[in-house]
C-alpha cells in the first residue's frame, strides 16, 4: 500500500503496489495517446472517450445509454485494445442466466473433479451489452461482481482481474421489453453517458474510412499504445491528486442540494464518485490538484442518473444543472 496522506485518497486493493505513479504531465500524455488511438476508430466522440478514460482512471464502471448502432461496443473494444487489456463481451438476453456471466463448475471426466470455467466477467474490460434486457437476477450477478470485484461460485470466491472495468450499455428504444435497472444498481455505475449521433461531417468521414478499409473493421487492427501496468500507474496518480477542502466542501454542497430538491438525491457513494472522477479529470488536464471546474465537468454524468424526481417535470439532469447554477463554488 502506498502512503495515504489525504483522507480523500481512496484505498483500493492494489495488487501492483510496487509500481510507482506517474507525474501528472506524464499521465496526461499517456491518456492523450490513448484518446488519439481510440479516436482513430470512433469518429467524433472525443467527450465520450474522455468519459470512458476518466471512469477507468477513477476505478469505476460506465453505463452508456443510447440507441443501437452508435458505436458503443466499438468504443469499449477500442479502449481495451489501446491498453492491451483483455476484453470480453456479454450480450444480455431475457434468458441469460447468472452463471452465464460469472462462470460455472464443469465436471471433468478425466480428473473426476469440478473444473471452474470462468465466465466473461473474468476480463479487464467487460462489455455488458443491453444489460436491461436480462432479468434482474442476471443483472445483479454482474453488478455484484462490479462492486465486490470478486465472484463466488459454489462457495468458492475468486477475485476478478485488476484493473476491472465494466462498460454496460442500455437500450432505451424498446422500453416495453426491458427490465429497468433499479436505482440501487444504477448507483453502482460511476458515470452514465450518452454517445449521441455523430455530426454529418463526422459521419461522412466515418463511412469513408469503413468502406475504404478492406482489412475489416479498423478496431480489429488497433495497436496498443499503453499497457495494463501503465493504466495501474495512472490510477495511482489519480488517487494522489490533491482535492483541497474547498473542493470537497463544494462536492458536499452539490450533493446536499440534490437531496433537498429531489425525491431521492445523490448518495454518499455518488459524491465520492464525483470527487474521484474530478481527480481523474484533473489528471487529464495535467494537474495534480482538483479545481471546481473538474467537479462541474463531471457532475452531470456522475450525478444525474442517481437522482429520482417526484414528477416527470424535472429530470435528474435538470436538478444537477440547477445545482451547478445555484450552489456557491467557494
Amino acid at each position, binding site marked *: 500500500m502506498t502512503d495515504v496522506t489525504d483522507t480523500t485518497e481512496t484505498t483500493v486493493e492494489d495488487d501492483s503496489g510496487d509500481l510507482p505513479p506517474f507525474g501528472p504531465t506524464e499521465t496526461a500524455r499517456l491518456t492523450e495517446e490513448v484518446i488519439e488511438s481510440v479516436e482513430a476508430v470512433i469518429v467524433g466522440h472525443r467527450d465520450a472517450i474522455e468519459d470512458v478514460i476518466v471512469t477507468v482512471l477513477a476505478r469505476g464502471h460506465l453505463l452508456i445509454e443510447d440507441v443501437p448502432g452508435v458505436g458503443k461496443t466499438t468504443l469499449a473494444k477500442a479502449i481495451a485494445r489501446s491498453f492491451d487489456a483483455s476484453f470480453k463481451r456479454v450480450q444480455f438476453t431475457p434468458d441469460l442466466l447468472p452463471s452465464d456471466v460469472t462462470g460455472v463448475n464443469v465436471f471433468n471426466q478425466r480428473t473426476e473433479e469440478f473444473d471452474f470455467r470462468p465466465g466473461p466477467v473474468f476480463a479487464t474490460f467487460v462489455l455488458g451489452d443491453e444489460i436491461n434486457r436480462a432479468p434482474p437476477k442476471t443483472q445483479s450477478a454482474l453488478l455484484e461482481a462490479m462492486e465486490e470485484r470478486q465472484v463466488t461460485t459454489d462457495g468458492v470466491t475468486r477475485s476478478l482481474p485488476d484493473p476491472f472495468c465494466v462498460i454496460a450499455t442500455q437500450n432505451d428504444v424498446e422500453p416495453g421489453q426491458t427490465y429497468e435497472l433499479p436505482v440501487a444498481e444504477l448507483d453502482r455505475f460511476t458515470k452514465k453517458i450518452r454517445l449521441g449521433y455523430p455530426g454529418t461531417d463526422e459521419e461522412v468521414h466515418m463511412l469513408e474510412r469503413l468502406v475504404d478499409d478492406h482489412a475489416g473493421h479498423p478496431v480489429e487492427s488497433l495497436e496498443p499504445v499503453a499497457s495494463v501496468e501503465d493504466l495501474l500507474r495512472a490510477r495511482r496518480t489519480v488517487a494522489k491528486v*490533491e482535492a*483541497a477542502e*474547498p*473542493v470537497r466542501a463544494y462536492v458536499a454542497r452539490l450533493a446536499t442540494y440534490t437531496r433537498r430538491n429531489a425525491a431521492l438525491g445523490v448518495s454518499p457513494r455518488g459524491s465520492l464518485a464525483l470527487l474521484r472522477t474530478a481527480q481523474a479529470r484533473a489528471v487529464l488536464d495535467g*494537474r*495534480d*490538484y*482538483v*479545481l*471546481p*471546474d473538474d467537479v*462541474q465537468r463531471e457532475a452531470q454524468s456522475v450525478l444525474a442518473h442517481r437522482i429520482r424526481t417526484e414528477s416527470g417535470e424535472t429530470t435528474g439532469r435538470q436538478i444537477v444543472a440547477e*445545482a*451547478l*447554477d*445555484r*450552489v*456557491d*463554488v*467557494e
Partner: protein
Amino acid sequence: MRTRHTAGTDKGATRGDGGDDGAERRVFSRSTAASVRSLPPGLVHPATVGVAAIVGAYLHTVLSITDIVGGSSRIVAGVLLAVVLGLACSRLFGERIVAWATLVCLGLALVGYYFAVPESQRALFSFRGVFFDTLSFLTGLSVLRLARVDVWMVAVIPVLSFLITYLTGRGRHVLAAGIAGGILGIFVLSGDAGDAVTIVGVLGVALAAGATTLRVPGGLSGHGDTLALVLAVMLVASATITVIPAGATQSWGGSGGTPGLESTLIDDDELTIVGSAQLSPEVRFTIESDVEANWRTGAYDTYTGDGWVRSGDERPHTGALSGPPGETVAVSSTVVPETEMRALPAPWQAVQVDGRLGESMQVDERGTLRPGTELLEGESVPVESRVPDPDPEELRAADEASDEEVLDRYTQLPEDTPDRLGERTEEILAEADAENSYEAAVAIETYLIEEYDYSLSVERPDGDVADAFLFEMDAGYCTYFATTMVAMLRSQGVPAQFVTGYSSGEQVGDDEWVVRGQDAHAWVQVYFPEHGWVEFDPTPSAERDQVREIRLAEARADGVAGVDTAGSAPEGSPTLPEEIDADDETDVVEESADVDEETAADDVDNETVDDASAGSDIPEDALEGIGGGEATPDELGAEEAVDGADATSPTDRVPAPSRETLGYGLFVLVVAVAGAHHTGVTGRLRFALRVRLPARRRTPVADAERAFADLERLLAARHRGRRRGETPRSYLTALRVRGVDDRVHAVAAVYERAVYAGDVSREEVDEARRTVRRLAWESTPLVGRLFGRR
C-alpha cells in the same frame, strides 16, 4: 368515428348547460358571500389603517375647531352617516356615479354655506376676496377666521368623508389618502392642525401609499421592513424639523425667553395668550388728540379658550364711515409713528383717514379702519374719529341685544368652557344686583379690578384661560383681565369683544401723548343696541401704571435708546424707581381712576355689524404690526428678540444656531453617514484605495486570495460580477469575449494553485498582486493613461 363524434356533441351540449348552471351558481354564491361577509374587500387591507389615521387626524382638528365655534355633535353625526353611506355605496355603485354624486353634494353644500353666511357678509364675497382668503389660509391663518366656519365644516367635511370611505371600500387607498391628506393639508397650512396631528397624518399617507404599493403577493412581508424604516425616518425627521408655517402648538411663548407684552397683543388675526410678558419702553408713536383715550387698533370676536381669532373679511374703503349710531363727539387726532407701524391707533371709532393713507384704507367687519400699507416713521397721519358719548342711564335703559347675528357671533364661547364660569358670573351679578347688560358689565369690571392683582409674571394656565384666571389665578395682566371679562359677559348672553391697542401713554402736552410699546393694552367692548360698542377696562390701572413707570425709569437709567422723544424726555437726571414718591403714585391712581370713569361712561363707541357690512362706518385697527410685524411666528420671534434685548444685555443675542438647526444638521449628518454606509460608498472608497496601494504581506495563500478578490471587484465594476456556481476559471473565460486583459488569467492561476493545490510561491503571489494593482491603476480615469496599455 361517427359514434365518437355524436358523443362529443352531446358532451358539448351538456357542458354548455352545466356552464350556465355554474354561472348562476356563481352569482348566487357571490351574493351569499356579500351578505355573509358584509365588509367591503378594500377595508380588509393594511392601507386602511393609514387612511384611517389621516381621517382621524383631520377629524381631530375639525373637532378642536368646532369645540370653539360649536357644532361638534352635528359634525360627528354627519361624519358617521357619511362613513356608513360610503361603505354601503362602495358595494353598490360604480366610481363614476359616486364621483358625480359627490361633486353635486359638495356644490349643494357650498351653496348652502353661502346662504348660511349672513347677508351682510355675503356682500363681501368676491373672487378677489376668496382668492386672498384662500391664500391667507394656506399661509398660516386659522380657518377660524372664516365666517360661519361651523356651517362650512358641517357642509364640507361629511361629504368628503363619504368620498374617502367610499374609495377605501373600493380599495382605492391611495386616492382616499390623497383626498384625506388634502383636507388635513389645508388645516396644517392654516396652522389649525398641531405637529402631532400632522405627523400622524403624514405617517398615515405614507402607510397607505406604501401598503398599497406592496400589495403584490408577498410584497408586504418582503418590503415591510423598508416601509417601517421609511415611516420611522419620517417620524424622526418631522419630530426634529418643523417647517410648518404656523403650527397651532407653536406658541412662541411656550419656550425660550419671555415675550414682550406688546408682541402678544400686536398679533395679527390670531392672538395666543401666553404666560409672562415683558415691557418695551421704546416709543412707538406720538398722538395729538382732542381727548385722552385708549388708542384702539383692533378687535377679536372668536374666543378659542387659549387665544383670540378675528374672523371675517376686509374690504377696501375710501371716504368716511358713518360712525356709531348713538350720540357721538367728533375727535380729530394726528398720529406720528416713531417707527414703522402696520396698525393705525386711534380713538374709537375712527371714521376717516386723510392724506396718503386715506387712499388705501381697509375696513373689516367690526368697523376697524386698517391701513393698507405701512405707516412710515415720522409720517403724520390725520384721523377723524367719532367717539360715542352715551349717558349711563341710557345704557341702563338700552334694550337687550336681540340681533341674531350679533348674538351668535359675540356670545360665542368654546364648547368645553366649564359651567362654573357662568355660575360664578351669575353669583357676582346677583350680589351686585345687576339687572341689565350695562350693570352686568360694570359689576364684572369692578369685580375683576378689585379681586385680582396686576402682574406680568404669570404662568400660562392649561385649558381655558378665562376659567383658569377666574378660579385659579390671583394676578395677571390686561390680556387675562379682558379675556376673562369677555368670557363672563358672553356666558350671560351679553355680546362683547376683545379689543387691543394702546393705553393713552405719557401726556407731554395739553393734547399730546407719547405712546410706548409698554403701553400696549387689551380691554373690552360691550355691544348695546342703538349705541354700538361701549368700552370697559377690567385691568387694575393703578398697578399697571406703576409697573410701566418703573420699567420706563429703569430704561432711562440704563440709557436705552428710543425711549424718549424730544417732548417726553424728563428735564433732570433719569428718574430712578426709588425716586417715584408717594405723590406720584397717588397721581397715577387718580389719573387712572379718571380713565376708568371715562372708559365706563363716556368713551363709548358705536358700531353694529350691519353698519359695518353696509360699508359706511367704523375704522378700527387691530393692534397690529407695530414695529413692522406681520404676525408670522418668525417675526413675532423677532419682536420678542427686541423686547428681550431691552431686558438683557445685547451681547446675549449673538446669533447662534437654534436648537432646531442643530438638530436638523445632526439628522442630516446621521442620514448622510448611514446612507453612505448603506449604499456602500465608504466600502467602495476603502476598496478603491486598498486595491491601488501595496498592502502588508500576509501568508502567500491569503495574499493570493485577496489579490483575486480585488481582481474580481475590479472586473465586477467594469463588466459583471461572478455568478454563483461560476468557477474563477469559467468566470474569466466568459469575460474573455468582453476583451478582458489576458493578465487576469495569470492572477487566477496563482489563486487556483494557492487555494486548490496549496502550493504557491511568494514570488508568484507578489507578481499577481502587482498585476492587480497595475490593472486597478490602468482602469482609473485619467491616471490610467500614464500607464499605457499594451
